């Protein structure tokens, strides 16, 4: 890499442009003199020079280090990076959070070329919109998958022993308010408060942990610790064998579970047992978690104003072989794309008996006929709990909360009621198996396809843009 000042870089660029022009005239002269080549001069010839200069500038900026003068006093905390460069790089950094299929969708939505690598797309989109940070933010939030930092997340832990007497448990937990217990190395749970409401017992608290390291300054040795806190709450309903935990991370969720276990007679179940009834035929070879997920997607989710628009990522797991294995094995496979369960790859994994343990999808939510929101959502099944995450997308958190309550309820009820294999689910399984065995390319999503009115609207939009 060579370092140039901006002035040297500009000079270099100008020299190259001048050379290119001069060589073009020279080549024209040579061709005319040697072969009497026809020359065409146009008064209104299009100007490509601006395009060439921009393209070459961008390309050379990747190859040459440009030592820019600082825009203000270069000191920690000051904004001394040139504004344009800073905006561009910040936009790139934010866009880089999106995965490649999401970036492709962003590019399509704004009329940019959706091809290329992750880096190419980040660069292309950032260069088009870096001077409009609000638009970059909107594009990211509209297309990102659900993530815990920007969403609501409920974990449902099945219980081996529930609490019959909620009032008694509430009284015990109330007495612990303002006290903390240690739940791990440099990890504590603080009981904040406990409330009995019509829909169950709410336990609120927070999780405090310390990150620690050793350092030396001069002759002094020091242990440095950085605290971090996470708010977490849990709800226990009467006659229901689940503890519903709302907290961003799994660590604090387990902490409140431990805290409730220690304070009451509640005991967690060692594993998430899914009830799937009526399995026979081809489905005998499928993992129960996959059957449960398909049942949930087919029968429970799309109802009362909720429609599946797009299945954007799926994670499959297979059973862990105990001990050392000589045979190469793949334990987990993650697929990313669009309308994944219509894809041959996903159908093959289901048919092979891999467990579908996580699904990210875009849902359309219409709480009223005239209101329509699109949310990124994730469902996952872990060893000892199930999770539903409702991302905010480009909507307000309040509207996400409305959907989240509904999704959490549907997942909870599905875990309680279980899945029932009937002719409809068997027909769905047959379509999955046919897709897995087929060698025909799939032109359009047909398994969990978007609703017809949504597709019609997309067609109309495309037609409008084309016109």
């Amino acid at each position, binding site marked *: 890499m060579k370092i140039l000042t901006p002035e040297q870089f500009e000079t270099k660029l100008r020299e190259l442009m001048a050379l290119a022009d001069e060589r073009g005239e020279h*080549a024209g002269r040579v061709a*005319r003199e040697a072969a009497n080549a026809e020359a065409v001069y146009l008064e209104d010839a299009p100007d490509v020079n601006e395009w060439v200069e921009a393209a070459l500038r961008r390309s050379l900026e990747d190859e040459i280090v440009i030592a820019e003068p600082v825009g203000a006093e270069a000191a920690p905390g000051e904004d001394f990076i040139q504004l344009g460069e800073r905006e561009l790089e910040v936009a790139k950094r934010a866009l880089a959070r999106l995965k490649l299929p999401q970036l492709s969708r962003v590019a399509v939505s704004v009329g940019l070329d959706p091809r290329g690598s992750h880096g190419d797309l980040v660069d292309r989109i950032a260069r088009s919109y870096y001077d409009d940070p609000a638009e970059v933010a909107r594009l990211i939030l509209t297309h990102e998958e659900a993530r815990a930092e920007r969403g609501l997340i409920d974990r449902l832990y099945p219980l081996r022993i529930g609490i019959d007497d909620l009032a008694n448990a509430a009284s015990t937990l109330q007495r612990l308010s303002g006290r903390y217990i240690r739940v791990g190395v440099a990890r504590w749970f603080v009981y904040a408060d406990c409330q009995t409401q019509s829909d169950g017992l709410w336990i609120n608290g927070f999780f405090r942990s310390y990150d620690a390291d050793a350092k030396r300054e001069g002759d002094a040795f020091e242990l440095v610790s950085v605290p971090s806190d996470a708010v977490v709450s849990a709800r226990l309903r009467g006659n229901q064998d689940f503890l519903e935990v709302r907290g961003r991370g799994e660590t604090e969720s387990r902490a409140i579970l431990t805290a409730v276990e220690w304070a009451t007679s509640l005991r967690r179940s060692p594993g998430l047992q899914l009830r799937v009834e009526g399995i026979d035929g081809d489905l005998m070879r499928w993992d129960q978690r996959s059957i449960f997920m398909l049942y949930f997607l087919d029968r429970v989710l799309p109802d009362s104003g909720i429609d599946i628009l797009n299945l954007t990522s799926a994670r499959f797991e297979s059973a862990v072989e105990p001990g050392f294995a000589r045979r190469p094995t793949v334990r987990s496979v993650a697929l990313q794309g669009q309308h994944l369960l219509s894809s041959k790859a996903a159908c093959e994994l289901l048919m092979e008996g891999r467990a579908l343990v996580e699904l990210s999808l875009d849902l359309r939510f219409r709480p009223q006929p005239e209101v329509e929101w699109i949310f990124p959502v994730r469902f996952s099944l872990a060893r000892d709990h199930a999770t539903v995450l409702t991302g905010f997308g480009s909507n307000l958190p309040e509207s996400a909360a409305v959907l989240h309550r509904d999704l959490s309820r549907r997942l909870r009820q599905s875990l309680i009621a279980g899945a029932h294999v009937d002719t409809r689910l068997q027909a769905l399984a047959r379509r999955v198996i046919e897709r897995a065995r087929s060698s025909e390319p799939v032109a359009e999503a047909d398994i969990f396809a978007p609703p017809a009115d949504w597709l019609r609207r997309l067609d109309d939009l495309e037609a409008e843009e084309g016109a």
Partner: protein
Amino acid sequence: VAPRIVRDPELIEIRDLFKLQDFCKKGRKTNARRGAYFETIDMFIQRLEVHWEEMPHYDDVVFLLVRTLNRDPTFRGFVRSQRQNATDLTDRDLWTQICNAAAGTVLHQYLVAVENGEWAPTGVAAIAPLPAVLDAAQDVVAIPPPQQQLRELNP
């Protein structure tokens, strides 16, 4: 660093539509032009290679060649002759695409000539035309093509 030269079927379509391979092909009538363009590429590489680390960034050369072709009135004449005057040479997007496709084609011909020992680069320290680069260079840099115009030209 792999050259950021990518396959682009639409540019290949333009190349074939306007027979851009013939612009600098080997031949009695075009050898002088071929030499002039190959010398030009030598000069570009000479000035650019100081910034290339391990692999040549041939897309830099393509961009410069676009400007060179745009400045060469006989290139405009060549393009017009290929389409029997039916092409609107004042359309900026289409013209950019044509220059792009031609630049990639000329660079490809140059790299093949160097590889085959038919062209000795003048004053160029390091040229590394690997087979993959050769293959890729033919398809040049991708920018969104003017589909509408392509359809009109080649219904």
